């Protein structure tokens, strides 16, 4: 059922995830292409966020996650980050009491190449000029859109190979969402960062993504290119609304 993806950066096999004794993800297989954008679609509570959390080892998991040829079995969240997987969690996860500058510095916490970090900061400002204006401001005082930009930028400061994005559109005005998704596409093209996007808004996600998987009650029920998914009758009726 799942289309093989050329040069997968991450291969997920039989992934199960648990909250305490409760199993939420029941054996998910999927691939994330290097340099591509892959979307996880599905209704509220389908287990999309949990899949992302399992990839970052934030919840108990079983199964195999192979990233850039390395099995992530037994790796803790901080090790996963150090391998080059940056996670923008739901709720954005910015450090509200710290300044924008400190948030961005934390994003690069594991890096020792100072000159490149400084250069990356400039690249980030070129995508999100607002953050330069707000640089010394407390992150908690930013607007929702600005906080999302900060969360994405914080993740990019890791210079990740893969960016995990959990509902970047959540709680934001449509015009800001459009802006952020346009910038995400630009970052993907220009910086070559692969992205795995969790999104409830299927239209939005399929516009951005090359590949998509449909998640229902903790299982992948459909996978393929964005066009194929968009063309699927069941998806159209249930998730695209036309």
């Amino acid at each position, binding site marked *: 059922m799942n289309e093989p993806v050329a040069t997968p950066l991450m291969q997920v096999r039989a992934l199960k995830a648990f909250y305490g004794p409760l199993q939420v993800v029941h054996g998910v297989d999927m691939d994330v292409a290097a340099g591509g954008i892959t979307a996880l679609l599905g209704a509220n509570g389908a287990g999309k966020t949990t899949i992302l959390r399992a990839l*970052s080892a*934030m919840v108990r998991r079983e199964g195999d996650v192979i990233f850039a040829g390395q099995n992530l079995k037994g790796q*803790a*969240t*901080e090790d996963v*980050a*150090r391998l080059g997987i*940056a*996670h923008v*969690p739901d709720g954005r*996860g*910015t*450090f*509200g*009491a*710290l300044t924008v500058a*400190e948030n961005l*510095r*934390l*994003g690069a*916490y*594991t890096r020792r190449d100072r000159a490149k970090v400084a250069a990356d900061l400039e690249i980030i400002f070129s995508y999100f000029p607002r953050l330069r204006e707000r640089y010394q401001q*407390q992150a*908690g*005082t*930013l*607007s*929702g859109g600005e906080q999302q930009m900060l969360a994405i930028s*914080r*993740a990019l400061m*890791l210079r990740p190979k893969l960016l995990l994005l959990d509902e970047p559109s959540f709680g934001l005005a449509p015009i800001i969402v459009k802006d952020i998704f346009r910038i995400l596409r630009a970052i993907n093209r220009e910086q070559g960062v692969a992205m795995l996007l969790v999104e409830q808004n299927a239209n939005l996600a399929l516009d951005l993504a090359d590949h998509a998987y449909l998640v229902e009650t903790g299982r992948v029920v459909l996978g393929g290119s964005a066009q194929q998914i968009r063309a699927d009758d069941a998806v159209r009726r249930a998730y695209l609304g036309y």
Partner: protein
Amino acid sequence: MSTFAHQFFSGLAMGGVYAILALALVMIYQATHLVNFAQGEMAMFATYMAWNMMDSGLPYWAAFGLTVVLSFAAGVIIERVIVRPFAKAPVLSMVIVFIGMVFIFNSVVGWIYGYEIKDFRSPFPEKAWFGNTLMSSHESGVIVVTFLVLALVYGFFRFTPLGLAMRAAAQNPASSRLVGIKVGWMLALGWGLAAAIGSIAGMMAAPVVYLDPNMMSSLLLYGFAAAVLGGIDNPWGAVAGGFIVGVMQNLVGAYLVGTQIQLSVALVIIIGVLVMKPSGLFGRVIVTRV
């Protein structure tokens, strides 16, 4: 007038000790939202170590430095071995662990060194500095040390990546892990720093209150009052609180209630602050927007 000034300045010096102790409390509170009741006894233990080293011929500052380093290591080990297993336990279990540590440190020191009161040297010269008639050199020295400790703590948290990582880990452990911070080690480091800072408080207090296994019990109460007064999440507030409590304790003791019930000043401050302004005089109110 001169009695008043003398009371004021010696209060300031004792306030320095409370301030350092409060800083140590704030350090652990910020990271874990727990108040380490054993902070005073840990400091007392460290002070005995310093006494031991000096007794066997080590010069003061060598013993001082070594004590700070050993206390740091001990703090890290205590977090790893004693506190860590209770990381997910309810707050009350943690309180019991702290109280247990109070008794353990107290009796172990009593067992090793005995309960008779010992003299503890001051590193500062006997003659007051610059012909200062109001404060002894030890009193001025304590105030200088307080500001040095505060400057170091502030510089560490404000300007070093590790300090930033510790602040981040205290504030949002989940996000900290996502940027690659080893949160567990940050907690251990916080305990190490708190123990090291506490040991300085002990060594500064000992020449005044003398060395005995119970030397810290009332000091910790004042340190706690200082931390609460200043705002327990704010290092600056803790230090300001320390000085205020020190001065108030002396003035109230000298002019209002007498020294017998001086200690209740600390309790009155704690209760008063908790009732009137729970975040303390300088407690930070975090602005958030959702």
